[in-house]
């Protein structure tokens, strides 16, 4: 099944979807996504939205951790900033800015604010690497949550009680159903993936990978570590900010505790399961990390019936199974599902000749 792969121009060779299988897969997926938006059940839409929001954040983490090689355990903070920024902007600007154009201003505001804070949090990355950086970003997460919960800012942030977010209104079209929101999330999710892939085929993305693989060698090629590490932080924080804004719009209710360490860890875990530094890694990772707990829930329900005594065992069992899955991936396939998929595709491409 070796496919004809003849290229007659550099432009054709530089395309992302450089063969018919990839084109078929991506365009087919987009079509399925559109059909899903129209005909998916309410429950499926709920799960799908959860995945979409998480996906955008994990694509952001992938830029930083997967491509630039900087580990962050604090990206929950940027999701929080996105969610709060969009809501607070909305609350403050109501009456000043017409409702119909509000999201066009509040969404960019949330994204830029997250990016700006991202640069700030990224500053330690110029001095420390690896574990030390992870701890520094962890601190950022705690500080942001602390500030949100602080009494002093409660008039704006709602403190421990959280905030309610109005549904976004695009020129009078209010996305007040989950299905409409899913449409928005899906469109932005696809664009987020495309933008990240574009980044990686230009000098900016290559500079990120160079810093990850060998930083002194990157410097010798004229790549400023200062500039690109901070750029990477800003981009990944911006993605998380967008995810946070969508989170606020979708659930219409935000609480500080939703953005704590657990979320930061979940983002990193999804990336590791999916595949670090691969475009499709976040997609696979998010599907697994959202679906597995759901599947465990469903199977558990089916096996035990709805016995009241067993129901309280479900949550801990779910976490144990999930943890075991993560460990399994770290041991058996550190490059994630993306690597497994690649291997299968390679074998299929060579069939019936050599396997490999």
């Amino acid at each position, binding site marked *: 099944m070796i496919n004809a792969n003849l290229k007659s121009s*550099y*432009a054709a*060779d*530089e395309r992302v979807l450089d063969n018919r299988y990839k084109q078929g897969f991506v365009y087919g997926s987009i079509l399925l996504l559109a059909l899903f938006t129209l005909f998916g059940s309410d429950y499926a839409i709920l799960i799908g939205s959860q995945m979409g929001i998480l996906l955008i954040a994990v694509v952001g983490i992938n830029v930083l951790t997967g491509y630039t090689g900087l580990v962050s355990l604090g990206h929950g903070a940027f999701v929080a900033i996105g969610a709060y920024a969009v809501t607070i902007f909305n609350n403050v600007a109501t009456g000043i800015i017409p409702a119909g154009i509000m999201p066009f201003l509040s969404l960019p505001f949330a994204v830029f604010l997250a990016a700006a804070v991202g640069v700030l949090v990224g500053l330690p990355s110029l001095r420390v690497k690896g574990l030390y950086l992870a701890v520094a970003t962890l601190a950022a997460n705690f500080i942001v949550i602390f500030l949100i919960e602080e009494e002093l800012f409660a008039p704006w942030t709602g403190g421990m009680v959280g905030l309610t977010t109005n549904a976004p209104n695009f020129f009078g079209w209010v996305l007040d159903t989950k299905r409409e929101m899913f449409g928005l999330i899906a469109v932005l999710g696809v664009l987020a993936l495309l*933008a990240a892939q*574009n*980044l990686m*085929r*230009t*000098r*900016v*993305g*290559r*500079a990120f*990978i*160079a810093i*990850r*693989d*060998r930083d*002194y*060698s*990157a*410097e*010798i*090629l*004229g*790549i*400023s*570590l200062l500039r690109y590490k901070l*750029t990477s932080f800003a*981009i990944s924080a911006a993605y998380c900010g967008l995810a946070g804004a969508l989170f606020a719009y979708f659930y219409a209710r935000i609480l500080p505790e939703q953005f704590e360490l657990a979320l930061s860890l979940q983002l990193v875990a999804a990336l590791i399961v999916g595949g670090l*530094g691969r475009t499709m890694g976040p997609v696979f990772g998010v599907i697994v990390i959202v679906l597995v707990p759901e599947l465990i829930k469903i199977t558990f329900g089916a096996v035990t019936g709805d016995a009241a005594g067993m129901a309280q065992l479900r949550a801990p069992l779910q976490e144990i199974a999930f943890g075991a899955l993560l460990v399994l991936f770290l041991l058996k396939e550190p490059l994630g599902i993306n690597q497994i998929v690649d291997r299968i595709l390679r074998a299929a491409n060579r069939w019936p000749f050599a396997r490999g």
Partner: protein
Amino acid sequence: MLRVEDLHLSFGGIKALQGVNFEAREGEITGVIGPNGAGKTSLFNAISGFYTPDRGRVFFDGDDITALSPDKRAGLGLARTFQNIALFRGMTVLDNIKLGGHTRLNTGVWQALRYFGAAQREELELRREIEERVIDFLEIDHIRKYPITMLSYGLQKRVELGRALAMRPRVLLLDEPVAGMNREETADMARFILDVQEQFGTTILLVEHDMHMVMDICSHIVVLNFGQQIAAGSPAEVSRDPTVIEAYLGAAA
């Protein structure tokens, strides 16, 4: 073209360089030789900006660059390769070489995220240039899509040279370009180095232990021993110099 003046560098009590003075003349190949631990790589690191010398200065095309960071020096047209290959292992040969063009490109983050338009034009232009100027030149067109990890040592060295060439350097520093190569690979590499000098007029400074190659291709040689410059001159002069013979062979009995 590239001049170092009275360069001193020490690590604690170890004096790695003690007053090195020489000039790599424009368009010529200058060799730096010396026994192990003579300070050759330290000299390279000081020239490319990883080490700040205690005393002395580095001039690039007449400008003092002693205080510039490595990436700024790269922007001026100073390229180098490393003794133990420093390619990016997670990337293909093509992407590695493309990174050499980094300082010449202008795509910003916004253009990069959109890709279509300015970024695409620039990328395609870079691709064309690299294919014609580097990949064809170094005869590595058959491996351009291979990941670095799949290549032999000799080819990796050649790709590293390619990455440096993609910078369109005015001065090229080669740290042991043929270390660990067999005779055939050494001959290939020597030929490529001479071709680079001839075709692009690049000023080349190289550190090497392979005396045959150094004597054959260099027009000027600097000899270091224990951080001190003990001789400098044409290959013929240096090979007759008694201090050099003593440093390499020990004193005559």
